[in-house]
């Protein structure tokens, strides 16, 4: 790997997340424009030589060849555009693919864009799409969408560990509190544990407030080799480790159905490459599509023993002021979860945090970030480690 050049993020953009009037084209354009504007020394015309699009294609809008739509919206018609689809981990995988392209020397400036437009389809079509990335035959066609699959995991976790239900509720409370200071967040509204526990059940034990919302939004990153980063900015963010893993699609087929081996593999691979270990992480962006997912993530990423995420959550360790701030942008839970955009959005947050540009949600002294993106119920996962440049 000695001939590989480290990759850095030199620009990042983000739209608001939520139920938006803008369509997919406008969202793509907006995220890319914002990323361009974020480049301190500006972006020369024609500099982008590789583009990666992360999207599930929610609702069936432009099922095939959506890459061409992005090429036009990004003003990069002619550049190769690669579409990456790994369900909710599409963004993380697109970021990884772009990192590889830059590190290998094939790309001198890669654009990564994640997009999903979920709220402009009728309810029935939306619910149809919400389950297409799980195991079709044994999970979906036994009545489960992802809420149901995570409901199964939560029931097992609660049977195994005390105070689990309180910790699940606290994940939602904490992430909503974090979302208050994120202008892009879908929900900027504090909630209480009581409200979480009293919310209508979607997939018991998970209620409505244990679930991330349905969202529109896009996010974009510009990635350059470290030795060219100074052309764009004095404060790039270094991509110091990437890891990815896969697992059996159906939870029932996994040796241990209550933990995500794909997350463990991704984290181990990322830390193997990084010049630092878990203890020096300043904050984490983890994939909290459901409250149970944040607890499992902390354990599978190696920050807690099985069941240990309960204490970290209840004692405030995962709050912005805690030892391991988790989802300081509100997470999927409060910021929103436009599927393909999520992994890219996590990197956007790390970009602004590590450049100390996060304003009132800034994590003091943030130096190193861990990003964790999961596809569906754990069939795919990525972990990306970033550091102040």
């Amino acid at each position: 790997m000695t001939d590989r050049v480290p990759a850095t993020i030199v620009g990042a953009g983000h739209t608001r997340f939520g139920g938006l009037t803008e369509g997919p084209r406008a969202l793509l354009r907006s995220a890319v424009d914002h990323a361009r504007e974020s480049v301190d020394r500006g972006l020369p015309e024609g500099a982008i030589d590789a583009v990666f699009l992360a999207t599930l294609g929610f609702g069936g809008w432009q099922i095939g060849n959506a890459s061409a739509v992005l090429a036009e919206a990004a003003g990069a018609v002619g550049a190769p555009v690669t579409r990456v689809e790994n369900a909710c981990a599409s963004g993380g995988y697109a970021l990884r693919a772009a990192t590889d392209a830059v590190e290998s020397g094939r790309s001198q400036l890669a654009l990564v864009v994640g997009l999903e437009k979920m709220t402009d389809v009728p309810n029935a079509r939306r619910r149809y799409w919400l389950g297409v990335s799980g195991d079709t035959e044994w999970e979906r066609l036994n009545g489960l969408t992802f809420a149901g699959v995570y409901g199964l995991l939560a029931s097992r976790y609660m049977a195994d560990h005390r105070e689990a239900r309180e910790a699940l509720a606290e994940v939602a409370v904490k992430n909503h509190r974090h979302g208050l200071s994120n202008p892009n967040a879908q929900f900027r509204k504090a909630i209480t544990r009581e409200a979480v526990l009293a919310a209508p059940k979607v997939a018991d034990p998970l209620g409505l407030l244990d679930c991330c919302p349905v969202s529109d939004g896009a996010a974009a990153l510009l990635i350059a080799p470290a030795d060219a980063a100074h052309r764009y900015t004095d404060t790039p963010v270094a991509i110091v480790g990437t890891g990815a893993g896969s697992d059996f699609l159906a939870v029932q087929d996994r040796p241990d159905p209550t933990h995500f081996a794909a997350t463990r593999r991704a984290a181990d691979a990322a830390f193997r490459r990084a010049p630092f270990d878990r203890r020096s992480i300043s904050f984490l962006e983890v994939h909290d599509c459901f409250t149970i997912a944040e607890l499992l993530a902390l354990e599978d990423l190696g920050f807690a023993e099985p069941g240990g995420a309960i204490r970290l959550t209840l004692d405030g360790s995962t709050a912005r002021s805690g030892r391991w701030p988790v989802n300081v942008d509100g997470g999927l839970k409060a910021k929103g979860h436009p599927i393909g955009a999520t992994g890219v959005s996590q990197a956007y947050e790390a970009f602004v945090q590590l450049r100390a540009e996060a304003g009132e949600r800034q994590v003091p002294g943030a130096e190193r970030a861990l990003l964790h993106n999961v596809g569906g119920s754990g069939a795919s996962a990525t972990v990306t480690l970033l550091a102040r440049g």
Partner: protein
Amino acid sequence: MTPSIRAVRVWGRLVDPQGRPLTAPDEDEFTLAVAALERLENRSEPTLHGVGRFPEVFRWGLPSALGRPVTFCEHPPGRAGWKAALAEIAEATSGLSILFGVDGPGDLLDPQGRGSGYGAAAFAVESREALESLGPLLDSLPDDATSIEGAGAIVDALRRTRGDQARLDLGGWDPPPASPGTADPERNRELELLARRSVSEGAYVPGARYREGAASRWRLAADRCSRCSTVTFPVRGWCRGCGATDRLTRFELPRSGGRVEAVTTIGKGGQPTEFDPLVEFGGAYDVVLVELAPGLRATLMMTDTPTGVVRVGDRVGTTLRRIYPMDGEWRYGLKAVLPSSPGPSPDA
């Protein structure tokens, strides 16, 4: 004449004359036929014969569900049809035969149809002579009787005249299952119409793949590898341990079920769209992750049990039921039941 009709048992449940529900929302003539025939099947190597007209699913589905061939006598139901079928079956077989009839949505949707719900009736006959002796029992059957009424008439007559163990649930009603839902005839008709209009879009399990999956989804088929001893369930065509494709021996995990590892209750709005008719007619439902054998798991819906009752650690059994409609037909699969649940109880 020595009675050579042994262990005659009939099983079936319909909507009663007052419209009271007698089938669970996920039972129909197919699942009832499977249940009835499985009850009679703990005997050696019978031949199976369906009498009457049968929906398409019976032709491939019944052999898949039972693991043995089934012949169908496509005579019109009623007296003449049943008599012709008896003669035909007597001609073709000599050993133990199981005959069955069903009634279901085919009749339900037909304005001229006589059926008012779903049912299946079956009985076992030990010899050709015994089969031939059944003909006169049908003399009082109307010529437009349904398939199940033919079977029922035979069993009723046998019970009256020979004191056999026969029992037909057309009049001796079991209590309705405890699961939510309804078998109200009007609602059944609506549900059936809804199912027939169901059209899949995008990702789904095509019919061919569904039928391919029936071995594992209906009978818990698994493959044991003779090279590495790994058991692969559901079957994949290769060994999950070592990848071998030529060292696999097919067997079936016990359908007596296993232990609940995880459970969720899907409330209204949490279900995939394919399950909308079920939720509309039956409300919330439970789904469990069941450990069938060490390290081998199945995701199964619960049935015949109110939601929120089953817990992690409980033991559950399995039963074949309707799961969801797709492309205009019902799809079936095993569901989990608590052993104590007041589900189908055919023979008292």
